[in-house]
């Protein structure tokens, strides 16, 4: 299509400004994380990287004292990975199965059970944190991965994604499979799951990022710092910045922030096409 020179020029200018708006805070955090704490304390935030990147990142990755606790950033990354993967895998499996029952079967309790699942959309975890905490405490699941992951899975978003997708699968495939002698379980395993591969991947990516970025629930759940995810770790480090009358350890706090950000950003950027497809097609 025809575009005037001026329009092309303003388009690029606006987009570059937009990109800078998004990137600048993260870049400044990164640049500032590569200086010594004394330097940052005296000179403020930095735009250009300094020479202490390896020192700072190495310290928080491997030295528990750098993160003000008994746990290193490496262990926090591991916890985040467990949370992200566990959440994504659990969510995908459970919602695929539930959506299959809802879409492909006629059974007595279909309608009431659908409404039970639907109702979880009405009440995000945030509005029921206090009683949720008590339930998990009663079950003795505080400070366990199970207690961390399961309550987060108790929502229907994934189920609705798969419900939408299944409904778009042509009816004739089921009919052909039935004529080919496939029962419900075989149809699910042989036909539906392989057909859903792109969808599964897209939802997996979205859920991994959502799981990795969880904040409120892990904050309440994990009193034992062995279970801190990196997102929670950042908060603890920032909280203790001004303790002990020392010069605040800003660079290491920034380094932790950057490390918390890199994995989900990489996942989203690398699997961009799949991720956008999943996000846009399912949330409709």
């Amino acid at each position, binding site marked *: 299509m025809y575009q005037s020179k001026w329009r092309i020029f303003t388009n690029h200018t606006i*987009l570059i400004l937009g990109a800078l708006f*998004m990137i600048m805070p993260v870049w400044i955090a990164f640049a500032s994380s590569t200086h010594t704490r004394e330097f940052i304390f005296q000179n403020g935030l930095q735009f250009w990287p300094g020479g202490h990147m390896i020192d700072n990142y190495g310290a928080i990755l491997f030295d528990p004292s750098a993160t003000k606790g008994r746990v290193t950033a490496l262990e926090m990354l591991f916890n985040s990975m467990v949370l992200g993967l566990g959440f994504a895998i659990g969510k995908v499996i459970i919602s695929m199965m539930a959506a299959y029952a809802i879409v492909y079967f006629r*059974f007595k309790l279909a309608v009431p059970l659908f409404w039970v699942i639907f109702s979880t959309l009405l009440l995000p975890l945030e509005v029921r944190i*206090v*009683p949720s905490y008590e339930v998990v405490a009663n079950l003795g699941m505080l400070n366990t991965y199970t207690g961390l992951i*399961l309550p987060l899975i108790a929502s229907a978003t994934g189920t609705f994604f798969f419900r939408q997708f299944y409904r778009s699968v042509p009816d004739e495939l*089921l009919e052909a499979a039935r004529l080919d002698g496939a029962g*419900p379980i075989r149809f699910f395993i042989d036909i539906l799951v392989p057909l859903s591969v792109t969808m599964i991947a897209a939802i997996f990516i979205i859920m991994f990022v959502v799981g990795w970025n969880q*904040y409120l629930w892990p904050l309440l759940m994990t009193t034992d710092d062995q279970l801190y995810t990196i997102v929670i770790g*950042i908060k603890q480090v920032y909280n203790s910045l001004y303790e002990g009358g020392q010069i605040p350890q800003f660079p290491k706090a920034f380094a932790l922030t950057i490390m918390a950000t890199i994995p989900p950003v990489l996942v989203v950027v690398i699997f961009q096409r799949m991720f956008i497809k999943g996000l846009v097609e399912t949330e409709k």
Partner: protein
Amino acid sequence: MKRVQFEHSAVPYLFIAPQILIISIFFLWPAAQAVYQSFLLEDAFGMSSQFVWFRNFEDVLSSASWSRSAIFTVIFSVLVAVISIAISLFLAVRADEVIRGAKSYRTLLMWGYAIAPPVAGLLGNMMFNPLMGDLYKAFNSFGFEFNHIQNANDAAFVVILIAVWKQVSVNFIFFLSGLQGIPKSVQEAATLDCKSAERRFWTITFPLLAPTTFFLLVINLTYAFFETFGIIDVSTKGSPGGATATLVYKVYVDGFIGADLGGSSAQSVLLMIMVSVLTVFQFRFIERKVHY
């Protein structure tokens, strides 16, 4: 639903059981608990409790801090939704027009989706740190006398800015794919009929994006209600004096830090009602869009 379905007695229950089990334990039970507790009054030591009907609700609704928080939540949510939608729409329209570097721009503008809200909050906190924050210094060097530690409006500005920054990329993704979903032939027909790009946008493109915009409005309001918890908790912590505490943040503060279970539960129940209304609204809209 499907034209053909399996008629089988046990299999569907088997498939739906895991989800129902998890929902029952970690959703229905706590939700019922919240409703039950909202009718109880505990003594100061949590030793005994007493059934007080709607007293907790009366207390919550008549308390100045709750209504203040409610008003802030509404203003905050509307501003965050409108501003971030406007910025993203503007960027998406330009990104849709660009031919050279289109992919790079898309990547540069969408990656923010992956940032955790508390990380966004920390980055904002850092930019506004009175000791070294670039934005803090910049505003004050222009003579604004900016002080978000003490001034409620300045603090609100900080949270809104962070919340908008975090949400721009999500909206951008939806708008860009909405724009790319408009048939090329429609855009070409519009170019023949209308010379001004601006007019073309408001008369052709924007009406075609209306469903996307409306959908995003709902999504953004939900985001501002709930997902900004992490942002607030690490940037202002609701200060000064609860001026930037959204309703969700207040439930947490009163329930966990203040240990007022009854009051916190009553607040939860009120929130549940509000969210239900919002969600039902959203679903009605989605059902309508099917016919669009």
